[in-house]
């Protein structure tokens, strides 16, 4: 009995040693030369493997960073943000310029109230399936389909569907601007925009390219391409193309003149401090007159 155990242990030990020696030489012979910095960079990355950087996961991004070092302009990990990129730069011993923080923005006003349903969709609840079949259950063939493909695509739990409006809502705290939702949306409703000064943003919350009357009929809060906002903008940040206004977030100075001008309330201003409606003295235009922002001001 004891001998059997001793023999077993002895044989397994010898076998282990022999194989270890073989493996050592094989590993030496077929060693893959890899930059040790890749491992180090990978360690400081968030490890979400979301692909938001444009690479196939965090390891590939680490490799990309090392390869493009010392110029890291093309490398940006949206999840780690500027802080994360500073860590990467520190590992590689280079400098990296800070990028504007960004966030996903839902550009659709088509709540149940604004955009009446013209038909009922009874098929599989997926935006992609729905988009492949037809234009959706409203008169607007551009806007949100409301099946929540973006919610499923978000790894960070930053998007949820608002049951009252039927539209997705982005949680700015959680959103890393990785762009997974942008790719998941078959209608291209979601856009990655700069977060803006103190998180304040002004954007056209509509992507309807139909002519004014058609767009208005489909949705009360659609952009009708009237161009009033473009005229009102002192910074030439707004362009109107194909009956649709677009605000360039790099040029917008958050003056909110366009918000006051928009006849349908398609332009949203979010996270501006709420000014209490004081009688008379308040300077015009009052932000309180602006359409209700889809994202509530941050609570602090």
């Amino acid at each position, binding site marked *: 009995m004891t001998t059997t155990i001793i023999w077993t242990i002895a044989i397994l030990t010898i076998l282990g040693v022999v194989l270890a020696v073989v493996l050592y030489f094989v590993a030496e012979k077929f060693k893959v030369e890899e930059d040790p910095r890749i491992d180090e960079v990978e360690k400081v990355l968030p490890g979400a493997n979301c692909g938001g950087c444009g690479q196939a996961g965090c390891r590939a991004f680490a490799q990309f960073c090392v390869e493009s070092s010392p110029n890291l302009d093309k490398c940006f990990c949206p999840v780690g943000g500027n802080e994360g990129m500073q860590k990467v730069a520190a590992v590689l011993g280079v400098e990296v310029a800070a990028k504007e923080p960004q966030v996903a923005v839902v550009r659709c006003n088509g709540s149940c109230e604004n955009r009446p349903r*013209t038909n009922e969709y*009874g*098929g*599989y609840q997926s935006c992609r399936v729905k988009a492949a*079949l*037809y*234009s*959706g*259950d409203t008169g607007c063939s551009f806007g949100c389909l409301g099946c929540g493909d973006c919610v499923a695509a978000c790894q960070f739990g930053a998007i949820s569907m608002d049951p009252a409006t039927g539209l997705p809502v982005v949680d700015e705290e959680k959103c890393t601007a990785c762009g997974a939702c942008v790719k998941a949306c078959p209608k291209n409703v979601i856009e990655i925009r700069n977060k803006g000064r103190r998180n304040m943003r002004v954007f056209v919350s509509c992507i309807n390219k139909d002519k004014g009357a058609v767009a208005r009929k489909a949705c009360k809060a659609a952009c009708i391409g009237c161009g009033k906002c473009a005229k009102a903008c002192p910074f030439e940040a707004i362009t109107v193309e194909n009956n649709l206004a677009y605000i360039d977030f790099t040029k917008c100075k958050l003056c909110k003149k366009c918000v006051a001008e928009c006849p349908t309330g398609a332009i949203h201003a979010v996270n501006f401090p709420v000014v209490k409606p004081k009688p008379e003295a308040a300077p015009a235009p009052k932000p309180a007159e602006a359409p209700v922002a889809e994202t509530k001001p941050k609570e602090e």
Partner: protein
Amino acid sequence: MMKTFSIGGIHPCDSKISKDCRIEVLPVPSKVFISVAQHLGAPATPVVKVGDQVKVGQVIAEPAGFISAYVHSSVSGTVKSIGPRKDLAGNNMTHIEIDVEGDEWVEGADLTDTLVTAIPEDNKEILDRIKMCGVVGLGGATFPAHVKLCPPPGKKADCLILNGAECEPYLTSDYRIMLERSKEIVVGAAIMKQVLGGCPAVIGIEENKPEAIKAMTAAVSELQATAKGYDGISVMTLRKKYPQGGEKQLIDAVMGRQVKSMGLPIDVGAVVQNVATSLAVYEAVQKNIPLVTNVMTITGDCLPMEKQHNYKFRIGMPLSYIAEYAGGVPEEAVKIISGGPMMGKAIANLDATTVKGSSSLLYLTAEQTVRGVESACIRCGKCAEACPMGLEPFLLNKYARNNMMDELEENAVQDCIECGCCLYSCPANIPLLDIIRLAKGDVIRIIRGRGQK
């Protein structure tokens, strides 16, 4: 023993309620909107300007590529506007709006009922006329007919198959034209057969249409007795099974040959055309009439018998106008389908207009349309048994939900013909087709992308 295709298939109730309704001609409305995308392939480019006077049969849009087709005006009048308008699915597409004034046809169009049996000898001229008249396949896919009739070099057609199966429940438009325009269809078949190099032609009709079989057989024998060039045309009775009218299924049923994965019918020497296409070819070649009309069925279980119709419509007529003319949308209808109940599309927008391939307005009731609650797959294999392409829908469903593209391709998701047999047979109400169709699109894009590298 009657022939049918060898694998899969289902037997939905055929519900051909409107089969005894003669084809009526719809009056021309005061305004039509003609879409430039009435065929498979690139949308045509408009060649008229706002304010132009057009006649019936005048070209208003030209093909914008090899796989594309001419579009003709279906009315005479003035071009009012050219711009985006919502199509059947609610998506924007360029439409040409024409205000109707009178009903003046282009010169050369022969509007008489006389049957012209003498076939022109020059094949090139025939093909040219088919192309110039904008003839597309009217079996559903609206593939430009002249492209199909010119096999690529090195390939030869062994058989022309005319599809008179009309396997979709409810639809009766093909049935009616087989009864009322049988001889014209046979002439069309003879023309196409000659273009393809004199191969035999088989008209495949399902057994549930004995009248049509009789009428077509009589037409074939009469023409064979009285005119030249009609040898080798025959009528074949097929056992009733859906989707017999699928191109690959019909080739299997008639010729016993199977088209390879991602292959074309011509690879096995077959050319399939619908009977309605054959009629359009007859009108184009023998009568010089472009494809501006077709026949559609207005039907549904909730419609009383007197409101069931088969209409000869002109392209560009608003569907709402047709529905109104036919007696209005019944109250019980919760869903209107264009096409058959199996493969047709739900109409999201009744203001959309008819296109060359429009085949029906089918009213379905709530009871007929509500989907059951989805439950788990129990691996019963009914979907695999029903699939006429020999696929395993339950497996494809799993792969598709997990985005496993390599496995999807290995399991030939790209061969799916979207017939809906799997969805129809699934006892767990799993939306198999919805999911597989999406995966098929993705896989085909990947395959095409690979080819371009």
